[in-house]
């Protein structure tokens, strides 16, 4: 099973996580057109490449962001959304797989 590093709990097997989909910024609902909103709601950037994604560590209830390449399935870094501006991803805790 693939391993994923939760910024709070360290490296864990994928079975402990829930995939939350791509992290996306919504257009301004007050100013965008219906078409723009429909595109935001339904369309996805499905082409392979580096994505910012939501992942949820179920046992601890931690939502975090993973920067993952959807072609190689390699994760570049993971961090809490609140640490999004941190240059470096938080290192995994001392305990981890």
């Amino acid at each position, binding site marked *: *099973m*693939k*391993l994923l590093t939760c910024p709070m709990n360290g490296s864990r097997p994928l079975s402990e996580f*829930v995939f*939350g989909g791509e992290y996306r910024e*919504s257009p301004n*609902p007050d100013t*965008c057109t*219906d078409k723009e*909103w*429909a595109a*935001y*709601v*339904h369309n996805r950037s499905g082409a392979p490449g580096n994505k910012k994604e*939501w992942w*949820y560590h179920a046992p601890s*209830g931690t*939502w975090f962001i993973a920067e993952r390449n959807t072609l190689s*399935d390699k994760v570049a870094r993971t961090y*809490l*959304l*609140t640490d999004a501006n941190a240059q470096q991803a938080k290192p995994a805790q001392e305990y981890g*797989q």
Partner: protein
Amino acid sequence: MTLRLTTQIGEWINRNKHIHFTFEGETYSAFEGDTISSALWAAGQKVLGRSFKYHRPRGVLSFANHDVNVLMTDGMDTNIRADVVAVKDGMVLTAVNTKGGVKHDKNRVIDAISPLLPVGFYYKAFHTPRRLFPFWENIIRKSAGLGVVNVNYPRILKRKLHAHCDVLVIGAGAAGLSAAYHAAKAGLQVTLVDENRQAGGSLTFDLGGDAKPQQVLDDLLRKVTTQPNITLMTGSYAAGYYPDHLIPIVSDTGITKIRAKTVIVASGAFEQPPVFRYNDLPGVMLGSAAQRLIYRYGVKPFNKGVVVTANDYGYRVAIDLLDADTEVIAVVDMRKGSNASPDLITLAKRGVKIYAGYCVYEALATSDKSAVRGVVVCPYDDQKNVALTHDSVTLACDGIAMSAGWAAAAALLYQAGTAMKFSYEVQQFVPNTLPMGMFAAGKVNGIFELSQRLHDGVRAASEALRYLGLEAAEVAAAKHMGSTPSHPYPMVPHYKAKNFVDFDEDIQIKDFVNAAKEGFDNIELMKRFTTVGMGPSQGKHSNMNAIRILAKIRDLPVEKVGSTTSRPFFHPTPIGHLAGRSMHAHRLTPLHDWHQQHGAVFTDIGAWKRAAYYPAPGQHKDEAIQAEAMAVRTSAGMIDSSSFGKIELHGPDAAEFLERFFIGVYANQKVGSCRHVMLLDEAGVIIDDGVASRLADDLFYLSIGTTNAAAVYREMQRYQQMWQLNLGLVNVTGAFGAVTVAGPAAREILSTLTDLDLTYEAFPISRVRTSVVAGVPARVIRVAFVSELSYELHVPMLQVPHVWQALLAAGEKHGIRPFGSDTQRLLRLEMGHMMPGVDTDGLTNPLEIGVDTHKYMQKAYFIGQRSLAILAKRPLRKQLVAFMLAEHFQGELPLECNLVVDGRDILGRVTSIAYSQTINRIIGFAYVTPAQTAIGSVFNIRTDSGTLVEATVVTTPFFKSTSQQATGA
């Protein structure tokens, strides 16, 4: 006639333990440690199986589980790999896939008509006329397949364990043992696995009359077994490679899923059969198989034989045969001219004739095709790939040992994403670029000479050490010296064919030629069309030859042809092993055993088990539900609602969070009041609903449906991450339970258990109070979901049984009775409440269920608001209405999901329907077109049997309690 030899050094059998078993009705004796095949072979029984397609007699080929010539059943289990499965006392065995026994298999006629069954024949016939295909298909299905599955075979528990190590070494041959020892010496935790019952790999049988291999083995085993940080697992194979170095190790007892920091693959090589006519006869076997028979089981492969070889290895085999009192009349060396084999002279001295530059043109079968009676050899032009038959010689013998070359056992390397390259030095695919943390050593790495293999193990170990950041000396990679161990094209054409490449699937050279001519000249297409490598041995003995043949056909270098993708599993792996222990975790409320004792029928809702209803003995479901419902309408009922999702929102921004998260308005919600919440997704689709009770300015208590509770809470956490509001979310689903008491007598019953003022004025509908009930702190919520007069008592989970019992006692004189979640569905229907997931589906939006969204659209933002604005501009396609059937309706009752139709048009469907005893009418919800939503309009429901039933749109609630009940005035 026995072929059992005198005791061999290091043999794997215990000659003091005798075993008896039967095969095809005859009794045989064996020694403890024998495999089924070794015991039968020792007894001179050589026809051990029949082939998949042509039902040709088959015996030992690789004797290493690289072919499935020999599959047996013991009546219980089937497709038993007799070559490697230890024989047990009292076994009663037969070969699979025969008609009338392995010796006289009636299906052998198929072999005779095989010209009628060319490659892919089944694509080309049986389909016209169409109506006849089922007839042919039936015949084909019956003749295909291997063993018969015993449907009474018991479910077996095999444990699946997780384990971790620094270095996982796969293969305990010379390279693997040496790698494991050197890694362990440096202090790493090492796990060493080997599929054989004993470690040693080819050191246990590839002697060539030389004592050195066994000395090396003894030395390595001593070191490895005395090294405390090495775990040696024999009889265990690495079944596949999965991301991040997860490798399941399969043994008889179960699976160990090893997560390794590094992996050293020292899995060796599969010996490949040269291809010539009748190379599948019992008695024709690989050189390594002959050696395994001799040194592991003390069994003579045959009495008088010929060795056909294309490398020096065959000469060693010849010597081992001689040492095993086997007459070797000739070594047929497919290589031109003389060669450097050091054993040449030895053999000549011992009277073995060497035919250099010769090939085996064909093996000669005894009359019943069950054994070898001789071999035809002739000069071989390996440039032109022709056998020069004019100079052929016929030699009488009863066996042939074949040593033409090898294929890397690289399955795991491929699966891990290793880029392989073809090495002409060894005529074999070898690793070119290995993935991070993976290393290869020994034959799989193209290293064959013993001392080099030992050295290669050390190299791999030191590379693994450095990868893990430890100090280790750079060790130069070994390079293969001398003649190539594999022949570039050990395949001898024969005009009468029956020269087999894939023994699983009975595929001959001509099948590849034909497939290519028909356009399947890509390795993957060829695999699919010929089915080469698709049998149970997954191409272990056939893929390499297939690649060579295709390369020759297309006149391409081997590496250009490439190879087919390697997939798990390395060996076919039992379903019971993979499944492991059955684990089904459920959430149970503390009342679960009470429900059980009172005859509840349970239903799974999410992870929870809920009581659906409580039938009296012999009582039908509907009767039970009606009776429970009537109790609620006439007196009182109570339900265990502990599985509700319950979430506390603490903090100044609690109301703001709800405003954004749900569709409703909460900013101005009064403390002590309850409001409906509805969650949408960004597309405006209804996800779930529930109730928000405001306990304080900065504290909301949210209760939501059981099914989605976990998902809803998860989404709340996600949005809080984004919004960073000043509040805390506390999921109290497991900490608080809930009991709902409902019905006209509910107030009176509850009043005996609490000081709370329950009068209508003090405690009207949609209010929450905090109090003490039956001595237990409780949040009392008055919602009119199942009855106008009903109280949800939310109390600490472990207190639920106490409160439940108290209510039962207090309600006894009112005839209070429990009701289940199914009854709740009826009650809420009578009250006119829709249920998400029942009355909505994956696309329903609030407009379609008649939610007046205008006041909500004024809010600054809520999830799904923008999409609702878009949807509001679009004409509604369907709308949910409440309906009733005619009074005293008789006839077939429509069911949920029956359609609302108008001729050929589907207008909608019934989402809820039930008979309400209270009002003695059949009531429900249905989707109809907006045109039909007016109260009093009539639509048609089509029942299962197709009859149309008229339904009339009505207002809700269906059931109106007397004001007396509501107000208690």
